């Protein structure tokens, strides 16, 4: 049984990971991440890439919704802005992948600032509805700004090229998306050790109190929108490189609900929550495919898959909010605690 960690310096107290056990587990995780692509088949690699993109995007939504308490139903549209930025830039000039991903993030960040402006006047549910409006307006722009976005036909994207290698298979793509997602997660973890991140949390807990304490509400809310959109933009850029074709229908409102489900299921206001939730939610359709395949139904399985998936997402949102509001992250923690305290307390 482990009862605590003795800390002898401030550095140690502030460290992101503070025990040797944690470092051991991290090393194990790193090894798994490195070995995985060599042992997995194409299907699992595809899923892993998709999962990593979703994790990065969910981490972004969690900054806005989980930590700052501003519900956004426009996250998918922001990803769309990032994806379109990558695609449009590619048509104009040949940039290194990292630069165009950063550009995607930056453009989306600007879009996020603009969408965040109503938070000048409204908050809570009103803001959530304003983000629906933003999502609709962006969708309109995607499908009607013919000359840039290619209208409803969408745009093709060439595979990302790093050091002369085209990242056109899941195996190759994995080596780009994995480090980027880890960087995004580290960035988010560090954000909440800084003044900015703590200001976000204060705003979530009670915005008026936060203002009294000297936090500029507007500035920090906009910043939260900006950072969250930056994440969405980068994830959207990765999405564009991964699927290589984008249309206005690639980023519907239901995809925003998908990400909202991810952070509710995983746990709002928790980095671990973003990871677990996005991973879980990415696996749900695959698990459903398996289950429906086993069931003795004669009907066309692809026909019932889509509605069943929608129902399951909805039920996950409702079920987790009612029975486990802190999400999978709390389940994980409970399990951890059980092993820490074993055998003295069950």
């Amino acid at each position, binding site marked *: 049984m482990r009862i605590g960690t003795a800390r002898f310096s401030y550095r140690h107290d502030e460290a992101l990971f503070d025990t040797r056990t944690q470092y051991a587990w991290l090393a194990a995780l790193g090894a798994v991440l490195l070995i995985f692509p060599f042992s997995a088949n194409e299907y699992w690699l595809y899923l892993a890439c998709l999962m990593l993109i979703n994790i990065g995007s969910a981490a972004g939504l969690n900054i806005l919704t989980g930590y700052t308490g501003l519900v956004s139903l426009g996250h998918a549209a922001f990803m769309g802005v990032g994806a379109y930025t990558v695609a449009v830039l590619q048509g104009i000039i040949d940039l290194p992948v990292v630069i165009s991903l950063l550009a995607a993030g930056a453009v989306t960040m600007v879009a996020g600032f603009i969408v965040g402006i109503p938070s000048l006047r409204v908050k809570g549910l009103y803001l959530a*509805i304003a983000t629906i409006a933003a999502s609709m*307006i962006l969708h*309109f722009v995607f499908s009607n700004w013919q000359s840039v976005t290619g209208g409803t036909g969408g745009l093709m994207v060439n595979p990302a090229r790093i050091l002369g290698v085209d990242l056109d298979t899941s195996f190759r793509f994995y080596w780009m998306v994995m480090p980027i997602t880890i960087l995004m997660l580290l960035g988010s973890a560090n954000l909440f050790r800084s003044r900015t991140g703590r200001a976000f949390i204060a705003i979530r807990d009670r915005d*008026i109190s936060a203002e009294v304490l000297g936090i500029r509400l507007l500035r920090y809310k906009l910043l939260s929108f900006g950072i969250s959109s930056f994440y969405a933009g980068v994830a959207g850029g990765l999405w564009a490189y991964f699927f290589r074709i984008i249309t206005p229908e690639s980023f519907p409102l239901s995809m925003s609900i998908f990400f909202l489900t991810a952070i509710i299921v995983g746990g709002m206001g928790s980095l671990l929550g973003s990871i677990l939730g996005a991973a879980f939610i990415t696996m749900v359709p695959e698990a459903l495919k398996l289950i429906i395949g086993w069931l003795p139904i004669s009907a066309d399985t692809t026909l019932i898959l889509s509605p069943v998936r929608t129902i399951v*997402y*909805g039920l996950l949102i409702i079920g987790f909010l*009612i029975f486990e509001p802190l999400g999978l992250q709390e389940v994980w923690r409970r399990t951890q605690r059980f092993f820490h305290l074993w055998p003295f307390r069950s």
Partner: protein
Amino acid sequence: MGFDWVFFAEVTLAGLGTGGLYALTALAFVIIFKSTGVVNLAIGEMLMLGAYLCFGFAVDLGLPIWLAIVAAIIVGGLAGGLIERLTIRPMVGESPISTFMITVGLAAVLVGLVELVWTASPRRMPAFLPDDAIFIGEAFVPSKVFYGFLVTALLIAIVLLVFRYWRGGVALRATAFDQAAAYSMGINVPRVFSLSWIVAAMIATMAGILVGAVGGISPSMGVFGLSVLVVVIAGGLDSVLGALVAGLAIGLIEAWASGFLGGEFKIVATFMILIAVLMIRPYGLFGTREIERL
């Protein structure tokens, strides 16, 4: 000849038709919000469910249309009560945002269920409104729209009267005004919560049947709910008058936008209005201003 007045009149009348339906659905929304404080994003999906229930009774079970409508309204109301009991009641006392997200989940579940039973392809509602060409002055009005508007106006009037004079309606208004006071006066507040969801679901069902009769039904008609959301925000979440005025106004503006600018501008116009309202008068035209204290 310049401006085409007949076309303008036709578009305006069609807009009024849609606007009436917005107002009716917005009424359902406001009833739920006033009595339980829940912002119900699933209102469009409840409307869709109602339309499909009617379709199911009339086509799949072969009932006569009037019977099917009554059955759909009853079953729709029961579904509303069930939704309240299973998903909203456990959330009493939680933050409004959590409850809001429950209704997001609810919307997904309802869409999925309807797609599972009736598939995603659009259907035609059996016709029950009289079918003859109607001219007001020179302007032609599709008869469905005309009678739809008449029925809507009638329904709105009935709902308003019911809330004014019926005992349950009075209890509902009392709860909306002051929950604690209503409780101490012997009003069973949890039952009022159920009641408000049942009534709202019934109204949504009626609206759904009318929307379906005018424009056909499909699982994506929940989008109608998004416009309704804009209506209630523009009118003020807790204002019945606001719902009626804003419903007609949004209906008109949408009709003008799609008539004069093109169909794809309809939804953009709606949401532009939404953002403008949020920036200028966040609590809506007739809503009560929220005062926050620490």
